[in-house]
């Protein structure tokens, strides 16, 4: 078989991050080719380049032995490339048929389109009523609409970006049958995923990417989930600088059977989460984004009275019903994923941003008035102790770089002497210098006996800082692995949803 697509030295750099670094590989005609990697490995950037959404800085794409330049999705479609996105773009109030005709580049009558679509539905087993409105369809059916829409353009190549992330197990099985049938009829499918068992079940070949580079090109039948997981994560045997000084006799936080049952299709329901956190322990919660991290943080922070079952016990007190304010008063500190507009107000000065998080402390108040001297001097101390590069505490928080602001926020929380610090993505999108500084500060803090929870997509970071790591996968939390004696293969399996 000859290749239908060949990537040659594709490079794409965004400010501060190399998304694709000399990516070269071939995709064979009439095959299912999986691209596997963690968040931020460069998978999405690569397929967006192929679909004409993103322009590469360098490199070329060869399709059917012709060198092509793909400037737009329209152009990609004319070359026979179609894409089914992770997030659907359908008009809820229109019918299936109306949505399909909106996606057509050529003029076609509604009746002709209906008969064409019906042929496709019958042939491949899509269970769709062309006259029902999108709003009445399940998530799986909506995805079918997106796929049928692509098939109407008679594609040669179909790109599917994490297509199973929104589906139930039965729907996934059905989708895989459809994909195999499409390939038998001549289509080439590019399948992006981070789920190991799915890749083993479905694909013919797999390309593993990490940090923007292609790590290896494999024939799937020679692999198993463990070997794939190991290669996806790489040989991440980072020397842990962490000295084990956890006091296992003193329990600080216990979560027991924490579950949530939201009806919102865009939330992941948590499924009986249990863990114990001891004094001075750093627990890392790893996992690919969208597996329940947001919901777990929501419950720990309790900003919106998010409903859940189970218990949260902080130092023998049940804090289920306590508000954010009350939890902070018990000396639990939080650093949220979003800096601007959540853990800091960009329009306000740095000292006002101290008060934002410290307003539960009477030290910063004089009755109903603000004690400006004290917030200013506290801000000054944070700036000094945490190397925040800024001329003064009067500077607006929004003027600081991401790394500086994050150092300021984390410094603000650390200096308030918390007993428990909960952070979400603490080093996301910041410069390497600030990242190293923050990691060092967190380790020092734990050595003073403060317990820390870090929710992060960045495994390297967790391996470097934490005592223990658990993985969140589709709302369930794995057993915790001790970092000192960690088995990378096992961690890889956990990341792909294969718990013991």
């Amino acid at each position, binding site marked *: 078989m000859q290749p239908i697509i060949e990537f040659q030295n594709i490079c794409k750099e965004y400010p501060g991050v190399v998304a694709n670094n000399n990516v070269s590989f071939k995709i064979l005609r009439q095959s299912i080719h999986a691209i596997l990697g963690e968040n931020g490995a460069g998978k999405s950037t690569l397929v967006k380049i192929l679909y004409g959404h993103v322009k590469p800085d360098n490199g070329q794409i060869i399709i059917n032995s012709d060198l092509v330049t793909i400037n737009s999705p329209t152009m990609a479609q004319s070359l026979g490339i179609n894409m089914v996105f992770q997030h659907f773009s359908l008009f809820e109030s229109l019918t299936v048929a109306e949505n399909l005709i909106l996606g057509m580049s050529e003029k076609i009558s509604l009746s002709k389109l209906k008969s064409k679509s019906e042929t496709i539905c019958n042939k491949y087993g899509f269970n769709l009523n062309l006259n029902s409105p999108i709003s009445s369809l399940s998530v799986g059916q909506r995805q079918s609409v997106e796929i049928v829409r692509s098939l109407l353009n008679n594609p040669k190549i179909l790109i599917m970006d994490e297509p199973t992330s929104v589906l139930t197990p039965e729907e996934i099985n059905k989708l895989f049958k459809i994909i195999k049938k499409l390939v038998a009829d001549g289509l080439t499918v590019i399948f992006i995923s981070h789920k190991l068992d799915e890749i083993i079940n479905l694909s013919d070949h797999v390309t593993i990417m990490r940090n923007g580079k292609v790590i290896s090109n494999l024939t799937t039948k020679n692999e198993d989930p463990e070997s794939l997981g190991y290669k996806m994560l790489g040989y991440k045997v980072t020397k842990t600088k962490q000295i084990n000084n956890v006091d296992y006799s003193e329990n600080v936080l216990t979560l027991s059977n924490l579950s949530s049952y939201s009806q919102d299709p865009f939330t992941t329901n948590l499924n009986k989460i249990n863990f114990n956190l001891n004094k001075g322990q750093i627990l890392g919660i790893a996992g690919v984004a969208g597996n329940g991290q947001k919901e777990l943080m929501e419950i720990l922070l309790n*900003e*919106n009275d998010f409903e859940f079952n189970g218990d949260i016990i902080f130092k023998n007190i049940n804090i289920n019903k306590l*508000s954010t*304010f009350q939890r*902070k008063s018990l000396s639990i500190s939080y650093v949220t994923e979003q800096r601007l507009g*959540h853990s800091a107000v960009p329009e*306000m000065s740095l000292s006002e941003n101290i008060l934002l998080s410290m*307003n539960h402390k009477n030290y910063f108040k004089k009755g*109903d008035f603000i004690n400006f001297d004290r917030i200013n001097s506290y801000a000054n101390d944070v700036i000094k102790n945490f190397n925040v590069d800024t001329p003064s505490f009067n500077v607006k928080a929004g003027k600081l770089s991401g790394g500086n602001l994050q150092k300021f926020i984390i410094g603000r929380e650390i200096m308030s002497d918390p007993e428990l610090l909960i952070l979400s993505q603490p080093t996301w999108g910041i410069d390497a210098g600030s990242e190293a500084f923050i990691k060092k500060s967190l380790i020092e803090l734990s050595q003073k006996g403060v317990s820390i929870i870090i929710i992060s997509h960045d495994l390297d970071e967790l391996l470097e800082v934490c005592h223990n790591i658990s993985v969140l996968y589709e709302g369930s939390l794995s057993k915790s692995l001790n970092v000192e004696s960690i088995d990378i293969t096992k961690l890889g399996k956990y990341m792909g949803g294969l718990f013991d």
Partner: protein
Amino acid sequence: MVYLINIKLREDYSNLIFYLSPLVAVFLTLFFGSFIFLILDLSPIESFKIFFISPISNSYGISELFVKATPLAIIALGLSYCFKNNIYNIGAEGQLTMGAIFGGGIGLLFNDSTSIFLLPLMILFGAIGGAFWATIPALLKTKFNTNEILTSLMLTYVALFILDYFVVGPWKDPAGYGLPKSMPFPDAGRLPVLFDGLRIHIGVYFAIMICLISYIVYNKTLFGFKLRVSGFSSKASQYAGFKYKNLIFYTFIISGACAGLAGLFEVSGPIGLLYRDISPNYGFTAIIVAFLGRLNPLGIILSSLLIALTYLGAEDAQLFLKIPSAVGFVFQGLVLFFLLGTDFLNKYKVSIS
């Protein structure tokens, strides 16, 4: 060829321009306003003189300016609490009316009183009436998540009908020739004037006091800090542990009380009794005053004087230029339009590709 309008958030959003843009808006209003006069076959310069200068060229005119500016400033200062908190109370006109009914009702109830406590009691009830009317949209918003813009606006018309009912019904002056108005308030229930023969009254002191208190609240207190944080980002406000529902109540009550106070001052001051049309849309115009003053207490005092001038100018224009007094509303509308425009262009960069 398809032209696309790109609207991008500016990173170098300027604070200086934010405070200067009211001046730009006023300048643009004058510039485009002069075309209105040209279309009406009037000399712009002469017309502007009649509109903006002659109304305040004597002590009576200046007194009248303060008479109009006082309710505008008091209402707008109250509204600034809501607007800073991103709560859009559009119903100040109704809260003003309810303040007049409550406070004025006390004046009618004790219509033979000579007590020095009558006026303070009326003022108190005026504020309570306005605050009471404002808690209804606050309650609806916090309990049922209704849109406060709609509910507060609709309640305005309810309040106007209630006033209507009282002045044609139970409170109609038996000696009033059947006109829809109440008996005049007793002298003890009238607001003292500052100078004999002029209508400027002690409401001015209240406006100045509310301005100073608001300045301190916004800049020095935790409550003001909470309002500003919630106005910037509701997520940050949750992170800080502020109770947003309480803030909604407090700001509605403050702005309702201010509007009620202004309503009482109108009826116990210049008007002296209750009748149908107690306010020339002060409650709505105060929204423009609040934004033109950048929700800043001092700025609101200045903008209330400017907008008050458009009321006086419109009256003079009707007299001397023979044009409808609605021209005053046209000018108010133009100012708001240009202010929103300059704010938008300061915040966003617009380009066409």
